């Protein structure tokens, strides 16, 4: 097969028109019954399913300093993540998180293809969980195919009802957990059982449950094939050194069944015994032996399946394996494939990733717990408060993002004789609260030339002078 850098099915020339075999632009989906598979990569996936779901289902139940450890309180616009409270003003950290996620996706994809899709994407993870339930109840691939083909019987009815009940229960629990990130989950539970849910809470629980049930139970690989944009644009990040799941054509072909005792070399056969296990285990229903295809989510189920067959046949493993295009074309050794992982592109992704992660970490560590907005009054630039004294009015908003109440002192600097009028010496702001108050600054009319002057408003905590913040503003002295 000819190597191309964009991994799509390679067309061996246009087919000649065939009068009586036509297809439409839409097709009826053929249901896929993936056969269960065990092996190294399946274990990785199970481990990741468990790890991600323990975090997802468990996190909202943790407590931290008397409140839910992770809570995104949209109504109050406060986002609690363990010891830190994020405010809408901290949106930069969300941006950084998204940039880090994107760069990680670039890096992992450049190194070993659609690792995210194969092992960690919620679509894969929930499909895996739903398939596990399906197998417990209906049996493996063949039993499921037979069950679906059979006419409705009591057994079929019971099995189908059981399966969907289990699916719906899990989906509802998932929806409930999801909403539990936005509303305190214990309180939400209480209100669920006393039938006291708010309209939107109920909507989102049901919506998320419906999406989980529909996507993982019914849609499955169609989400990846037709709907997911990431699936498609990850292909752009592949290059010839990217490890992808590949069938070793040189070793496998010509394929054919044979007895275990037959020497394939003598019979003129390759190592592929054409048992179709790799196709049966595929959750997207493709044949990896046709080369890399856009449907392939990189789950490596075919590798596990094929390795078991190779073991049984007494052939070496790895007829289907993680290999790069270059490796297959040039017959590179495993060592040289691994060395090619460290290429400029991956090194660059890693460097940028580390730089941003470090910067964000340091910024988070040094995060200033107070914020202050200074807004000049718009209606009036300046006024004479008493003869010879000029006054400007501001509204200041003090935001204490710490979860302890604090007392602040306000001072101002930048013009001779500038002073704050009528403000108590100290200002208290409650825990994770804001305070909006008018601020009047006074300057003798002859303190400076008429016009706009830069001033500096400083706020600092009374008990900790290191907790301070400067905000710049202007003071306007009118012409006399």
């Amino acid at each position: 097969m000819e190597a191309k850098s964009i991994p799509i099915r390679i067309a061996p020339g246009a087919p000649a028109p065939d009068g009586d075999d036509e297809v439409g632009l839409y097709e009826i989906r053929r249901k896929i019954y993936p056969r269960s598979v065990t092996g190294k990569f399946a274990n990785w996936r199970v481990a990741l399913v468990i790890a991600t779901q323990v975090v997802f289902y468990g996190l909202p139940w943790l407590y931290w300093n008397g409140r839910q450890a992770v809570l995104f309180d949209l109504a109050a616009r406060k986002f609690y993540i363990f010891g830190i409270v994020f405010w809408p003003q901290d949106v930069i950290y969300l941006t950084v998180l998204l940039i880090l996620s994107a760069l990680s996706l670039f890096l992992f994809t450049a190194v070993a293809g659609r690792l995210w899709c194969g092992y960690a994407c919620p679509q894969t993870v929930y499909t895996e969980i739903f398939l596990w339930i399906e197998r417990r109840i209906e049996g493996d691939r063949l039993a499921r195919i037979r069950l679906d083909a059979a006419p409705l019987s009591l057994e079929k009815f019971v099995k189908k009802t059981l399966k969907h009940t289990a699916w719906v229960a899990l989906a509802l629990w998932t929806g409930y957990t999801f909403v539990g990130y936005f509303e305190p989950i214990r309180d939400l539970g209480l209100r669920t059982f006393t039938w006291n849910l708010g309209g939107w809470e109920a909507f989102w629980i049901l919506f998320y449950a419906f999406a989980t049930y529909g996507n993982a139970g019914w849609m499955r690989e169609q989400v990846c094939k037709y709907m997911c944009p990431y699936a498609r644009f990850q292909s752009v990040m592949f290059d010839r050194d990217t490890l992808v799941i590949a069938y070793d054509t040189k070793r496998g072909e010509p394929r054919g069944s044979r007895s275990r005792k037959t020497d394939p070399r003598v019979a003129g056969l390759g190592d592929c015994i054409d048992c179709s296990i790799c196709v049966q285990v595929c959750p997207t229903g493709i044949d990896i032996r046709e080369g890399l295809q856009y449907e392939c989510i990189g789950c490596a189920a075919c590798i596990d399946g094929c390795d078991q067959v190779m073991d049984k046949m007494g052939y070496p493993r790895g007829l289907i394996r993680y290999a790069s295009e270059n490796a297959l074309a040039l017959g590179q050794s495993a060592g040289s494939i691994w060395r090619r992982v460290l290429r400029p592109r991956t090194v660059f992704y890693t460097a940028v990733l580390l730089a941003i992660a470090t910067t964000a970490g340091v910024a988070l560590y040094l995060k200033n717990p107070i914020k202050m907005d200074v807004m000049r009054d718009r209606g009036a630039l300046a006024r004479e408060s008493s003869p010879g004294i000029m006054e400007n009015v501001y509204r200041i908003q003090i935001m204490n993002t710490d979860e302890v109440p604090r007392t602040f002192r306000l001072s101002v600097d930048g013009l001779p004789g500038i002073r704050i009028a009528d403000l108590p010496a100290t200002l208290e702001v409650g825990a994770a609260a804001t305070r909006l108050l008018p601020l009047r600054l006074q300057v003798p009319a002859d303190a400076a030339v008429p016009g706009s002057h830069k001033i500096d408003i400083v706020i600092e905590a009374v008990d900790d002078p290191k907790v301070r913040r400067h905000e710049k503003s202007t003071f306007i002295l009118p012409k006399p």
Partner: protein
Amino acid sequence: MSDFTSGFWNLYVIVLVVASIAACAWLLWATGRVKVAAPKGAAKTASGSPGQVQVTGHVWDGDLQEYNNPLPKWWSNLFWITIVFAIVYLVLYPGLGSLPGVLGWTSTGAYKTERADFDARVQPLYDKYLAMDIPQIAADPAAQQTGERLFLTYCSPCHGSDAGGSKGFPNLRDRDWLYGGEPATIVTTITGGRMGVMPGFAQVLGEEGVRDVTAYVRSLSGLPHDSLRGQLGKPMFAQNCAACHGGDGKGNTALGAPNLTDDIWLFGSSEAAIAEGVAKGHNLNAGAGVTPMPAFGTTLGPAQIKLLAAYVWGLSNTKPAAAK
């Protein structure tokens, strides 16, 4: 709907919308019937997918072919559902030109409903204040917070966030009142607005006369002034100004004429500012800058006005309590 300047645009929109929906439906129908050749001798693999790719038969530049990656059938059904949705929507809601839709929904109607709902919801919060008198409300911290928010919304653009006023806009924090500081008077002021006018005296007094009167006015509150001019200005003041500002210059709250003997100056205390006022007057024409107090009786309900009045009254009348 009267927004269109001519009936043409009404028709234009209707034709566009109907044609677009029809075109979408035709496209769906047509693509649903298109058949392309299946790959020759397509070996069905175990999964049922053909062994070779399908192409639509379209070729560009000699060798650029279009693959056929068929969408699932339910996908085209989703498109049909959007068309059904569009038709149902256009029957129920306005969308086809100026046709109102059978539900008779309008955005102004929706606003009014929501506004009425909201008013009904907050009314109980305000109701209890209607029964209280203003000093009582001013002593209630919760009412003062509501009053402050109302003030910041409706009053602060002119009177400032701190109610300290600015040139032409009275300071509401002091104990000096143009129209009187009794609670009932403040309610009247907010409800009906105020429009204090001072005529210009440049014609009557002449340039020198204006300077003399200015000197006399400054003398009333003990500001530095030319005492000779002050002496000259005194009779002119009695003749021209005393009618409103009073013989002693202490003003008249019935007319909103300011007290000229204190150190509170609505338009500034400098000689130039006072002279300009004497010569040209105040609030006479929009070109020179008018600063009327608008009437809020139509915007705010009686309870809101009462809360605002209590907040403003409290600014200068509950100082000892607030400064604890």
